[in-house]
């Protein structure tokens, strides 16, 4: 019995440790990438009393408004005309009202948020959601 244990220990662990570290690094890197999908340039306002977000609706369209009032859709700058066209397409594709999340920077002037809201209203989306931080890490 004792002899067997010693046989196991004498095995070369180097290869296994290499693989374990590779796996650790892989998972650490992929987790970080997931975090980066939230645009760090937009600093949301605080809303500590809101309901914590559980899961994303796959249909949802997230519209970002940065602190200079520019409208961003998936990291690219869009005009309201283009935004309306995209929203119309999204509604036509899903055959239902798509949930709209407006991620407005805390310092963005209301007039630019209004431009986004008006674009949504024009395509027939009355229900909107404003994203905010419940807790900031």
């Amino acid at each position, binding site marked *: 019995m004792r002899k067997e244990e010693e046989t196991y220990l*004498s095995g070369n662990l180097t290869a296994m440790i290499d693989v374990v570290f590779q796996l650790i690094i892989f998972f650490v890197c992929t987790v970080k990438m997931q975090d980066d999908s939230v645009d760090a340039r937009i600093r949301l*306002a605080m809303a500590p009393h809101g*309901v*914590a977000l559980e899961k994303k609706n796959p249909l949802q369209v997230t519209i970002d408004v940065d602190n200079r009032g520019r409208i961003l859709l998936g990291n690219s700058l869009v005009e309201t005309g283009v935004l309306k066209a995209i929203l119309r397409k999204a509604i036509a594709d899903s055959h239902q009202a798509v949930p709209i999340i407006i991620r407005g920077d805390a310092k963005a002037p209301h007039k630019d948020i209004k431009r986004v809201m008006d674009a949504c209203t024009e395509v027939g989306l009355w*229900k909107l959601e*404003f994203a905010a931080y419940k807790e900031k890490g």
Partner: protein
Amino acid sequence: MASRKRRGGSFTAGELNLTAMIDVAFQLLSFFIITSRPMDVLTNLDVSRPSPDAQQKDSQDQPMIRIAVFTDGYQINDKNVTWATLANLMAKLAEMSRTQTIVISSVADAPHESLIRVIDLCAQNGLKNVSVMSL
């Protein structure tokens, strides 16, 4: 090499020198603990846009609370109030009915933060019917 040692019977468990690996592992561990920061918890605040016909219907059915957001303050039902007063009034009004309509309007230059703050106040008091209008 290992098999030769086994045959000799002089192998000991401590032969594989783990010291360096453990050192590195602790370095990595402390690095990740220091650099990691807790995840932000996000929330989505539901609001609706008043449609022209719905607005008229609402105003007849039940009283609605109008809150205006300015760059330097707030107004509730056309009366200037400070943030503390607004919070007090909202808590009292919410006690009467949680289904009443809140119409929030904001001036063009007010930061988005002030609007979110008012919507958050509504959420705090359990008011669900929140509409956002622009002045």
